[in-house]
């Protein structure tokens, strides 16, 4: 036990010398923000079943696009849930809640940006249902969400179904 205590003490001192509390808190904070953005959302995770859909995914009127602000990746070499070749998908995003007209249910949509190439310039949409100001980041589509990516240069936006919204 004494050996373990000694090892723990040495490790702790070494860690304390190599890192700052502020740095640790910063990283922890970033981790918590990231964690809050995805796994803790009030959604029921889809269990292998995708929602029945209708409409053209490359239009602003497509149901998943109720809170989008940007170029549709489906018009840029990707799709509603994939990034165009050579771009990088943002690990964090803003979310919207959109009603699927086929089943009348509300779904949580994650609008992950695709990054690293300049603006696609095709199929621009700005719908803003439930959009909130920049100081509510998780619901703000004004923010450039190319965050945590190699480059913060924005190319286009996806609209990924995360799950059913729970009221």
């Amino acid at each position: 036990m004494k050996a373990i205590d000694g090892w723990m003490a040495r490790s702790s001192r070494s860690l304390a010398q190599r890192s700052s509390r502020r740095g640790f808190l910063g990283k922890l904070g970033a981790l918590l923000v990231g964690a809050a953005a995805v796994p803790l959302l009030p959604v029921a995770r889809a269990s292998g079943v995708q929602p029945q859909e209708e409409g053209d995914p490359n239009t602003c009127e497509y149901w998943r696009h109720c809170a989008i602000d940007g170029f549709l990746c489906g018009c840029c070499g990707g799709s509603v849930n994939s990034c165009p070749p050579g771009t990088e998908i943002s690990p964090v995003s803003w979310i919207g809640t959109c009603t699927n007209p086929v089943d009348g249910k509300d779904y949580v949509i994650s609008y992950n940006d695709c990054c690293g190439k300049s603006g696609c310039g095709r199929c621009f949409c700005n719908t803003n249902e439930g959009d909130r100001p920049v100081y509510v980041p998780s619901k703000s589509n004004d923010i450039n969400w190319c965050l945590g990516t190699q480059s913060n240069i924005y190319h286009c936006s996806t609209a990924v179904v995360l799950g059913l919204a729970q009221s």
Partner: protein
Amino acid sequence: MRIWTLLAILTAAMTASAEDLVPELAVVEKVGKPTPHWLVLNDPNFLGYLDSKVYLIDTDDGRMLGMLSTGAWHSATEFSPQFDMLYSPETYYSRGNEGERTDVLRFYDVENLTAQGEVVIPPKRGAGAPHRAYSGRSDDGRFVYIVNMTPAMSVTVVDVGARKVAAEVATPGCTMVYPTGDRSFASLCGNGTVLHTSLNDDGTRKGSNTTEVFFDANTDPLTEKADRIGDVWYFVSFSGRVYELSATDSGVSLGESWSVSSRSEHGNGWRPGGAHFVAAHPQAGLFVGMNSQGDDSHKVSAEEIWQFDLETRKRVRKLALDEPVARIAVSRDSAPVLAAATEGPEIYLFDGLTGERTGSLEAPLLGAGVLQFVEVQ
């Protein structure tokens, strides 16, 4: 024989006039003495935003005076109290859209619109749809504040006199900067409060205070768009309530809130809307861009501009518009000009006191970004 004589005379005449001609000398212009009617027109250049721009335009005669190239993601421009130096937050990558990222606060002298150095800042400044409040300046001109969003929220404080980063100040849960004196700024928070951050003389964080909860960020949030008269910041909520925030270095106090629309106007769908729909002036009052598109129309351009007396909080008039207007700003002088930018390329000009349309300007094709009038102390 006669034709040869005529040719000789003509040749002699042409030689003489060529010898008298003084050749033109091409020069590079300089910018003259600024007036409060000069407009700083920030252009995010949405389809090519790696090459954002800043235009300087004299609204009195519509003349473009010059331009800055401001790299990627430029939102708004700060400037010295004498308006002899511009400070521009910019982002660059070593290979255009990729490679090593460098964020800078670049300095430009106004006379030549030429870069005069820069301060490298942490590479995490907030970007996206342009907002005026992504940066700000202390009232005495010493510090420039730049919002960071990773999405962790903080503010980089640059000492523009010493040309160095003075501090990075955490603003957890709160963002945007609204200067409130020489050594403090306010930020809006997701929990319905305002954070007031105080600085020491060296720009480091002195302390902070948070107001009580006074709005609901989910049901009726304050927009980031705001304008200031003296010590009072005017914020407008999605539904059209005006919140007056008195703020100085010593603290923040909330005034009463009031509505820009009657119950029936609200019922008919009238809401504040546009990319920046608030402008305030001591004599002209408060201008708010309004549309009739109902809930979730906070980014839909304004169909009318409503002008309010800030003493009585009554509407003075409605300014009619040929085309919807995305952004407005008002000059700071006693003969105020209200500039109202369509989605492109026209900017309408109004007499801020009478509401009379006085002219228009040509903006970039895709419309203007943040509009700022020059202030010269």
